[in-house]
């Protein structure tokens, strides 16, 4: 049995050390406490309980020392002994959550922590412990004698009743209705740690308006750290703004560090939308010093809408000076370049266009797409038109899509020429469709006639080509959706040619 108990203690010590190093949620910690829990519960199932006696530097079981460590700073026995814990008993039925709580308390290393008190607060069901009480000899307390002299107490009593307007015979109904009980429980449920923190923060901020003493400033600074640690960004923002407004203190400065900002990746994908918005509002208080760290953070953001929101906020920070992030345009890391372009494109600065020009021929198509997107923001249709001859389909499609949104009639003739060209037949249907969409968006008055011709007459490149062009032309006519275009489609419905008829039918159903 001693061997198993020694193994339990060894695993306990190991788990505590790992938790101290990495925190309770780290995979290494889990790998450590999972087997500890299994060994311990297995032992408890057979023996019913395990009772450990704590001595100054050692832990014993059944009068056998199973752990000894004389180094005070690392000795678990010493820490327990110092705080008065003399015995720990764990009984069968121990639950996983209890063990986690127990390990958390045991791994709190600071001297200020009172392990006995922290264990007591956990209110364990299957872990019992004995703590010695400090003996205090000097408790000779004299019981008071209550003397009231020369006062008519009957009259005094009557006066109080009159003064307070009391009816001493009024019945008092002390029953609590179901609704009242529920209300009490709700009240208690609202007394969460977060709620208390909010109230404490607003109290201290009230103070700060007229009291700029170090205690108040330091407390708010400490609470800011707590808020950031616990992802309480609404309060964090409130503190930073207030310290700045009332005490002219830049509290955000110490958080503008690469490691801190990159650590935001641990929650940015998982926090609630509401909390994300609070987080974004909070980071908008950061200075340009942090810009490059935020750009480095962006590749960790998995959800597009979250990334875009982050880019918006970083652009807000960069609006006064975007120089710190230009370096990333020369990076080899595609993600960094794309995110930098996305941030730059959100700035109201025409000169950005010139900065992006060198990237128009960047080898990676994703980067060229980002450039197109940025050019769209700056309404640089002519520059985007350059990309319809790009070697990559995804870039060309992006260009067509962008030109569809922007009004750029100058592209019209190039599009017609492209549709007429032999290569058009070999393109993916998506690109063919986007080309026609772009044609519709930028076509002039003659477009309907051209489309009609494509629908009814073109027999230029053989059967296959003819069928696709007819479909795309019919669809484009449906998109134009004028009396004239609809009349052409209705006319097509009456044609004998089945491909024309089919194309017009499905276009009209659009």
């Amino acid at each position, binding site marked *: 049995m001693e061997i198993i108990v020694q193994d339990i203690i060894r695993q306990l010590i190991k788990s505590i050390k790992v938790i101290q190093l990495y925190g309770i949620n780290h995979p290494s910690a889990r790998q450590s406490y999972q087997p500890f829990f299994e060994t311990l519960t297995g032992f408890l199932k057979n023996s019913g309980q395990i009772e450990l006696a704590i001595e100054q530097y050692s832990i014993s079981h059944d009068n056998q020392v199973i752990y000894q460590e004389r180094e005070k700073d690392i000795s678990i026995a010493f820490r327990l002994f110092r705080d008065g814990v003399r015995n720990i008993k764990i009984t069968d039925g121990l639950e996983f959550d209890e063990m986690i709580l127990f390990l958390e308390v045991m791994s709190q290393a600071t001297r200020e922590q009172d392990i006995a008190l922290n264990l007591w607060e956990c209110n364990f069901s299957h872990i019992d412990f004995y703590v010695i009480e400090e003996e205090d000899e000097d408790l000779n307390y004299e019981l008071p004698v209550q003397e009231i002299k020369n006062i008519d107490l009957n009259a005094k009593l009557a006066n109080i009743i009159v003064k307070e307007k009391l009816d001493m015979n009024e019945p008092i109904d002390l029953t609590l209705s179901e609704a009242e009980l529920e209300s009490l429980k709700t009240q*208690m449920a609202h007394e969460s740690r977060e709620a208390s923190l909010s109230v404490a923060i607003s109290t201290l901020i009230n103070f700060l308006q007229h009291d700029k003493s170090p205690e108040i400033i330091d407390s708010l600074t400490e609470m800011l750290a707590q808020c950031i640690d616990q992802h309480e960004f609404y309060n964090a923002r409130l503190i930073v703004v207030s310290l700045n407004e009332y005490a002219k203190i830049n509290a955000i400065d110490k958080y503008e560090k690469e490691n801190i900002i990159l650590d935001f990746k641990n929650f940015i994908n998982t926090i609630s939308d509401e909390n994300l918005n609070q987080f974004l509002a909070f980071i908008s208080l950061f200075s340009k010093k942090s810009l490059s760290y935020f750009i480095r953070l962006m590749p960790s953001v998995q959800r597009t809408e979250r990334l875009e929101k982050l880019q918006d906020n970083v652009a807000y920070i960069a609006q006064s000076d975007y120089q710190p992030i230009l370096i990333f345009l020369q990076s080899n890391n595609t993600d960094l370049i794309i995110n930098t372009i996305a941030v730059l494109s959100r700035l109201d600065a025409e000169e950005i266009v010139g900065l992006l020009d060198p990237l128009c021929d960047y080898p990676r198509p994703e980067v060229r797409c980002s450039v197109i997107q940025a050019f769209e923001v700056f309404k640089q249709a002519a520059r985007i038109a350059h990309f319809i001859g790009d070697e990559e389909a995804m870039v060309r499609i992006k260009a067509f899509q962008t030109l569809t949104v922007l009004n750029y009639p100058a592209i019209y003739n190039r599009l017609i020429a492209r549709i007429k060209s032999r290569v058009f037949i070999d393109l993916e249907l998506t690109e063919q469709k986007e080309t026609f969409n772009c044609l519709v968006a930028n076509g002039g008055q003659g477009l309907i006639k051209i489309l009609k011709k494509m629908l009814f007459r073109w027999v230029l490149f053989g059967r296959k080509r003819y069928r696709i062009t007819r479909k795309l032309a019919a669809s484009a006519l449906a998109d134009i959706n004028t009396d004239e275009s609809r009349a052409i489609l209705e006319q097509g419905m009456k044609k004998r040619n089945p491909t024309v008829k089919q194309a017009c039918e499905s276009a009209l159903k659009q």
Partner: protein
Amino acid sequence: MSIYSTGKNIISLFYALEKAVQVYDLRNDVVTGTAKKFGHILRTLLNIYPQVELVRYREYVFFNKQRLRFEIDGYASLQFIHDKMKQLRIRSLIILPGINEEELILLCLALKKNRDEFPSEFNAKRFAYVRIEYTDAEEETPDFLADGQRVKRIYFKALKVTKNLMNNLWKNQSVDVKSSKRVVHSLVNALSQDEFGLLALTAIKNFDEYTYNHSLNVGILALALAQRIGFSKKSLAKIGTAGILHDIGKVSIPRDLIYKPTRLSEQEWDILKHHSEYGVKQIIKTRGLDETGITSLIVAYQHHWNYDFSGYPFHGKETLQSTFAKIVRICDSYDAMTTARIYQPVPYIPSIAIRVIWKLSGQCFDPLLAKVFIQLLGLYPIGSCLEMSDSFVGLVIGQNEGYPTQPTVKIVATMQKDSIDGPIIDLSVDKGHKIIRAVYPQQYNINPADHLT
């Protein structure tokens, strides 16, 4: 499941079975089903413990030596079992391994009898696995509670720590935070073991040491109220500390103002009112900003806020008063009213203070918390001096759960002011005695401290 939750579960099944046998035929599914559940949990327990024991002592019920608290959940069942044991003079009910459903049902049937019929009914049934012990007129303290001095020791230790803490702050010296934490820890334990014993100590007021006494008393009253409404141990530790520290800001007020022997001028009151704000800074200095520190800070700041948003420091309606502060608001007012101070040499008697709390509930005090507070202390709190219908004077030494107007009193004097060592009368059982009115103990030369410790 902890022994405490198991105890509550046992009580609730016992209550359910007792009710079921009163209403249904014994073969009804409700009776057999409840008995089966009850039997199952008892047998499971009896695999671990040699016996299952319910003990009633004063107003407490203990399950295998663990005191069960009257809380919002399970209040009715615990009260029923307590009252039933009290009514039948049962001191302990012991269930032994081998218990079966049939004996459980028979036991519940026997419990329907009155005080005179029950013993013979119980004997006639010849229970094999149930034992009953009866109380004498004078209740004996169970062995596991024999150390009656323990609560007193904890109280005085707490008082000493409170005094040191405040004195050190006054002198701008460092304070021993760990001791104050430990004290609250001991108070919570003491409260769960002997609530009335500890509450009785709060009724002994020390004029000379008002500030420390008051701080500690508020802490204890707040703990008792919070325990009653079901706060977790962690929250109890927070409210206990916050209660003790609620007036800590007073150490930043000149001492001669705190101890001024005459009434304070309006200007002086204004200075004194700043103690809530000073309290915040003292808490920061003393406690730091861990969870307990944050709660204490809020309580120190908000403990003069009223339920109707009045009070000081001035505040709008956007910041809600924390429940912790609402609890301390009531306890602070009650203890302040009932304690003599330099400028209030004659305090309110406890029953008047209770009436004031009731009257101002919904205005100064949260009405629900005020109700629970009065349930806790009763209309005649421990330490109250009562003129009785039979020309004797009694001192309230205990409350009877569910009977707030019928406490347990010890007869200590005659109306002619002769001191006597009279009997203890439970007014909830002994209906022959009536309360005429509550008075000042000094009117009958009674020192409550002599009887409450």
